[in-house]
């Protein structure tokens, strides 16, 4: 019988459809895996309530496990609610490499988004001389920033706690 570690290994292939550089496991979306012979039950936690990527993730989890010969079921669990704290170190590194600034802590995030302090590092040149352009970005989880030194616009993954 497959172990939980095996299943999680298989699920490393499933990426966030909106940010394909990060595995949903590193995003902290997978909450639990229960295995009963061929039957595998995966609990996932939505990042944002209206995130259209959640349906896609469910489909991909099922497809990935079916390919390995399992009979998967996926359940959406709302509580405890997903937080950006569940993004792993590996996930944060993958985000930054992809070009999305990783979330700051709660109070730093608030100050950065309110324009009270320059705390978000430019993903292009590393300067902290950056400016919030919009609290809401291309997807529900991101805000839009621009760098005042190299003028690069970039996404910042908002802190959600």
């Amino acid at each position, binding site marked *: 019988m497959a172990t939980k570690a095996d299943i999680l290994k298989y699920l490393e292939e499933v990426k966030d459809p909106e940010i394909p550089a990060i595995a949903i496991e590193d995003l902290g979306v997978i909450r639990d895996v229960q295995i009963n012979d061929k039957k595998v039950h995966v609990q996932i936690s*939505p990042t*944002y*309530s209206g995130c259209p990527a959640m349906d896609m993730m469910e489909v991909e989890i099922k497809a990935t496990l079916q390919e390995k010969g399992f009979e998967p079921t996926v359940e959406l669990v*709302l509580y405890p*609610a997903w937080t950006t704290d569940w993004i792993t170190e590996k996930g944060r590194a993958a985000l930054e490499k992809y070009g999305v600034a990783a979330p700051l802590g709660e109070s730093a995030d608030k100050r950065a988004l309110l324009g009270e302090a320059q705390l978000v590092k430019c993903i292009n040149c590393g300067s902290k001389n950056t400016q919030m352009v919009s*609290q*809401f970005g*291309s997807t*529900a989880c991101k805000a*839009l920033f621009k760098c005042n030194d190299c003028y690069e616009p970039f996404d910042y993954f908002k802190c959600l706690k």
Partner: protein
Amino acid sequence: MEQKIYDYLLQLGDNSMILGHRLSELCAHGPSLETDIALTNISLDLFGQVRHYFQYAAKLGVAGKTEDDIAFLRYAHEYKNCLLVEQPNTDFAYVIVRQFFYDLYHLHLLQDLTESQDKQISAVAHKSLKEVKYHSRFSSQWMKRLGDGTAVSHEKTQAAVDYLQPYTAELFEMTPVEAELQEAGIAADLMAIKDRWQHDVMELLKEATITYPTNEFSHSGGKKGVHTEHLGYILSDLQYMQRAYPEMSW
């Protein structure tokens, strides 16, 4: 009891759905790219939350209805949203003032619902609260920017506050179902929320140099299914696909 929880879920969901629809009308019509994206993001969050409520309601199975039936196949009098959220996007000031009044109400409501004895309602509230904090931050900032901005933005914001304030009292009216569920520790106590809402609104309006109207008159009816004419137009748009192609799906 399940029927009552079902009714309560629909009422919670209807507020967010109708407001979400109003905001979605601004997609590609926002005054700037950033505000357009923000308003549609907020709309998306609200629709996501609505799905949590309606999926739970469908699961209760009291009316034998699916999530889509609940969202799309009811008549106007069966929608129990407050009149405030169906008011039109007259101008940007109206959009922001409506959002500001609703966000602060929504924030306090969800805070209380995290303590609900109904585990699923509490879970949805925990989840939604995180998102609504961002909404209220957005609308509060715009209230200050518009109210304390130019003479024109101030005048328009004051006009929107004067027009929409009479629709806010209804947010705090308790229906018999709500009163009963509140006794059971499931629904929120809207009277308690009203005081906190009033306090927050007053504080922010002061900063925004906007005067809170002194009038005592208020509109009401939505929670009983008696709506302004605007809802009919919203539903004809919202329900078009399901009515034209019954049981269609993606």
